[in-house]
């Protein structure tokens, strides 16, 4: 699977709440996201370097994550082990370090790049506009299958395999639809609109988008069934 050299949104920033370990997946990599008490955001491989236990079942101790299994503690920023409870006076080895990923916060999302990437996350259509992020929705389908369904919707233009723009009639601001490939069979659709609705108007907008996501769900079909349809 390609896509390691680009930024993907993986979660709305505001869903990475204090003292919570958020858990996402990108291109088959399980990733935990957590915000230290000083505000620093971390994106780590979901794996303790000691015995491989998922850190998503660990605890958030403010500036460290504590592994559930043997209590090893890993520091915000470096991912380095700061304490091995079984050997409290020993300096933890340098190799005891969680793998971390590049992370940015822009347009109301946390963005991750798994590999080398040029530039910053960019949504030029929204520059100079406010950002209203909407509820993200996960589909049991490949990104290409979700993109094909988006392309069949009136008003939606798919720009690349993971990004579409929705110019909505009667709506001055565009909406960006961003695909996060979790695996070859699972995709999360994020959405951000260039408006600053508030109150009842905002809630109606959020509800309408949520309803639309549920409405398109049954229309998302695999590439095999699309080509079978086309050759009929």
């Amino acid at each position, binding site marked *: 699977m390609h896509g390691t050299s680009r930024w993907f949104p993986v979660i709305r920033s505001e869903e990475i709440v204090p003292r*919570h370990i958020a858990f996402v997946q990108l291109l088959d990599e399980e990733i935990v996201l957590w915000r230290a008490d000083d505000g620093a955001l971390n994106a780590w491989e979901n794996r303790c370097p000691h015995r491989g236990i998922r850190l998503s079942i660990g605890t958030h101790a403010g500036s460290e994550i504590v592994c559930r299994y043997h209590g090893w503690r890993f520091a915000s920023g470096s991912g380095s082990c700061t304490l091995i409870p079984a050997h409290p006076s020993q300096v933890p080895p340098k190799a005891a370090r969680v793998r971390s990923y590049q992370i940015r916060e822009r347009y109301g999302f946390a963005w991750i790049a798994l590999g080398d990437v040029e530039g910053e996350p960019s949504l030029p259509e929204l520059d100079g506009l406010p950002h209203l992020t909407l509820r*993200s929705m996960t589909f049991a389908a490949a990104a290409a299958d979700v993109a094909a369904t988006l392309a069949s919707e009136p008003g939606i233009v798919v720009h690349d395999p993971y990004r579409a723009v929705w110019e909505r009639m009667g709506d001055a601001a565009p909406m960006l639809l961003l695909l996060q490939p979790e695996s070859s069979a699972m995709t999360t659709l994020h959405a951000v609109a260039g408006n600053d609705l508030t109150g009842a108007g905002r809630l109606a907008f*959020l509800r309408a988008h949520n309803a639309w996501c549920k409405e398109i769900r049954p229309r998302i079909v695999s590439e095999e069934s699309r080509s079978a349809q086309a050759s009929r």
Partner: protein
Amino acid sequence: MIELYDYELSSDAYKARLLLALLGVAWTQRYVEYYPRRQHRAPEFLALSPRGELPVIVDDGTIVDDAQNVLVHLASRHDPTGRWYPQNDAGLTSQVSTWLAFAAALTPTASAARLHDGLLYHHIDVDEARRGAHEQLAVLDEHLWFNEDAGWSWLCTVDQPTIADIACFPDVILAEEGGIELRTYPAIRRWTDRVKAIPGFIAMPGIFPA
């Protein structure tokens, strides 16, 4: 005196243990070996509760069965604050009832998948159970997401947890033991963190404390 007919691994019995702990009420355990001896279907237990399900409580001689009903009873009789089962606001009481029913509906889905994987209930159609659980979890995640957006932390629109949260929490968080991942339900994961942070919270096997 409260006697609780209890089994350590029962998610329904844990609902009663959890609320009793949160209420700070003393109780006595009557242990029923659900697996493998199936003592909940033995004549002595059926004489107490013909439905043959855990938990059952005997509270000063009153026999109460059904996990959700046990929560209603305990909160009604042993919570002087009235906050766990609010009954002075019809709209709120109705919300609690909705989520108690939702909790009961997790028994043939999330709970059944866990029994299949963990307690060798191999006659269960686990694919169907998981499919049903995912449909319910999608409903729950959406509800919690919009509640959070409106500033509510719990299942009902009230600023503290109720028995609705206690009823739904066990089978939701234990779903992963039945092969149902919670990763794609981020609002549910945040809510389970909040439940674990309630003062007096206790865990059970398969549930990690905060």
